[in-house]
């Protein structure tokens, strides 16, 4: 079980909750469980979500493990110039 913090727009789409506890071992499972629990997240997940684990942002490594006790923060998936 990991605690996940959602950014503002994501929290709004998840019914106003900014912190959720999810049973997930890695980012792939996290996304799967989140979409099952909060169908309203679908448009934002389709647009792309990044996961910050203890401050390091992961955009594509969905196999990345979610260590117990780690700070896990969901962010929009951004690009640069």
């Amino acid at each position, binding site marked *: 079980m990991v605690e996940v*913090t959602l*950014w*503002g*727009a994501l929290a*709004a*789409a998840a019914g*106003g909750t900014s912190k959720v506890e999810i049973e997930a071992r890695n980012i792939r499972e996290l996304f799967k469980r989140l979409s099952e629990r909060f169908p309203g997240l679908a*448009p934002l997940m389709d*647009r792309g979500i990044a996961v*910050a684990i*203890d*401050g*390091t*942002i*992961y*955009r*594509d*490594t969905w196999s*990345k493990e979610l260590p117990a006790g780690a*700070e896990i*923060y969901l*962010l*929009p998936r*951004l*690009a*640069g*110039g």
Partner: protein
Amino acid sequence: MNFDPRHTTRSFSSVGTRPIRPDGIDKVTGRARYGADFNMPGQLVGRILRSPHAHAVIRRIDTSKAEQLPGVKAVVTAADLPDLTSGDAAMYDILDNCMARRKALYDGHAVAAVAAIDARTARQALKLIEVEYELLPHVTDVDQAFAADAPLINDTIITTGVDPKPDRASNVSMRSQFGHGDVDAGMAKADFVVERTFKTEQTHQGYIEPHACVANVSPDGTADLWVCTQGHFVYRQHCAQLLGMDASKLRVTSSEIGGGFGGKTHVWAEPVALALSRKAGRPVKLVMTRDEVFRATGPTSATSIDVKIGAMKDGTIIAADATLRYSCGPYAGSWAEVGAMTAFACYKLENVRTVGYEVLVNRPKTAAYRAPSAPMAAFAVESAIDELAGKVGMDAVDFRIKNAAQEGTKASYGPVYGPIGIGPTLEAVKNHPHMKAPLGKNQGRGMACGFWFNFGGQTCTDLNIGMDGTVSLAVGTVDVGGSRASLSLVAAEELGIDYAQVRAVIADTSSLGYNDMTDGSRGTFSSSMATISAARNAIKVLRARAAQMWDIPVEDVAWEKGHAVAKGETHGNLPNLSLKEIAAASGTTGGPIAGHSEIVADGAGVSFATHICDIEVDPETGATRVLRYTVVQDAGKAVHPTYVEGQYQGGAAQGIGWALNEEYIYGKDGRLQNAGFLDYRIPVCSDLPMIDTQILEIPNPNHPYGVRGVGETSIVPPLAAVANAVSNAVGVRMQHIPMSPPRILAALET
């Protein structure tokens, strides 16, 4: 691939040196081939007809007269392209921007294109195309477009991120919010508060090379595209998807690139060139004019930003709040979201809130521009921070040092920071001789901080060792700033050979696995990770071959300084084998020697910079002159320090132009009035002093050498640093960028 702490004390052999770039001679002697330098036998000239109206329904397009003109081989409109109306909305927007389907959404929007035997015939043909428009009300200003009674640009846009969901369309495509704590309660406790509204005008990346490509679609359905781009693999994906082709049948080769800065991360005319070639059955070369580049490609957002910051008497910032409105062109974007994330990222804040709004306007589709959205947010925040420091009675640098984020700080956009460099850049600025130099009459000094995330992404690299022991490195990230030199240094470092023995090339899309766009300051960061991985894989092969040559177990072979070294008491007297010797024997030890790597280079390290600017203002004319400019930035590890410095200088130069001169000027008719470098003035060498740089190296824990991206952060602080300098010189807080002479005079008169 985590950072190896040994590197903090390690003496690198190649990394950190400053050899001449491998593409340098070709570039200074004119041999380098850019987008427009490629030609094919029998090629046609492509030209695009563009809307003269800011907002209009396209009632009818009659191309018959153009098609009958001798020498015209193809004419295309949206009717010749797939109708994605019911498909993926993002792909629909991309294609609609390349060729308008129902409405012209901005002055310069493409409505038809021709391919003809020469440019004269193509231009004649454009004049023969009849387009019947029904004009609609338009809006080009971000604040006017934000208003409830603004002309509606897209009646399907319902604001997302708002609860409850709005029941009618507007020009606001998305609301986003970030932050933590209780901002209102914090603000109520503040001893000092600064609250202001800032505006920035739309700017173009100003790359010298216009968009250019040659498309060649064969009757068998395969195609080639030679193009100036920051990401040929992404162009392949988009063009193939938009035109209904198999990606594997489209080979895209990236040319040398004369600047991109984010503006060459989108397809603009390339799908049109392919469609023309497919219809004509001949190669088509399409080169944009400068007018087209300005009217139809890549400007950044115009913004309007409200900032409110409160501080206690001891200088602690107690609350920070910002509302950011960013224009995104006529299609939904996520530019304000990025501004909202970066606005307060430099600071340790107990109570912080940022709200961003994406605002549709009748201007070209917004594209990234080097740390997209961050410079405007930094301008607003760093201006307010400077003013607040004055109210508290603290030095501007000391005030920032007191409130700077550090390792363990909860970032204003959410996560907790690892090791970061904002504090060290501020300390370096505080101690820099520039800060102590005297100023003269009508002169002012300003400083400001900036932040950018940096990104990694999908990356693929091949490292092939020739039989003569030299190394070919094939990478898929376009070289936008000297990365072939940097990556050659990394390969040389890992293999233990000389830099001159490595030649890096940018491979085409049929020769290498997929690579993400070269954006987000990821080129050297991600491709160096892949290069290190590929080199280490090659070393495994080299050790195995040496083991064969010596007839000893591979476990007894080490790799040291470019040589296989036999270890242990039994083999210790064997003479070392050089890479060259092993390569020469490769034909009889198993064939070619190579190392490959396919990775997702996640784990990019965030980056901070602090800039100092001295400026002189003529109070009679409002003219400005930058006297001195210094950039201090954390690079993690500077692989090729000269090109790191070049990135710092380039970002600062562009930011100075943004701050002082550059802006899109629209008339009441919604048409762009200054689509050319004569009237849209970017700074040239004679406008700027030598830009001094100082590289700091706080290693990124997620890269084996500690590398962070360096390409973008340098454009974040200049708008604010220059604005603070001007404000200090004239004694009036500047709130509108660019600070052109008329704006400075107007500010002085208030």
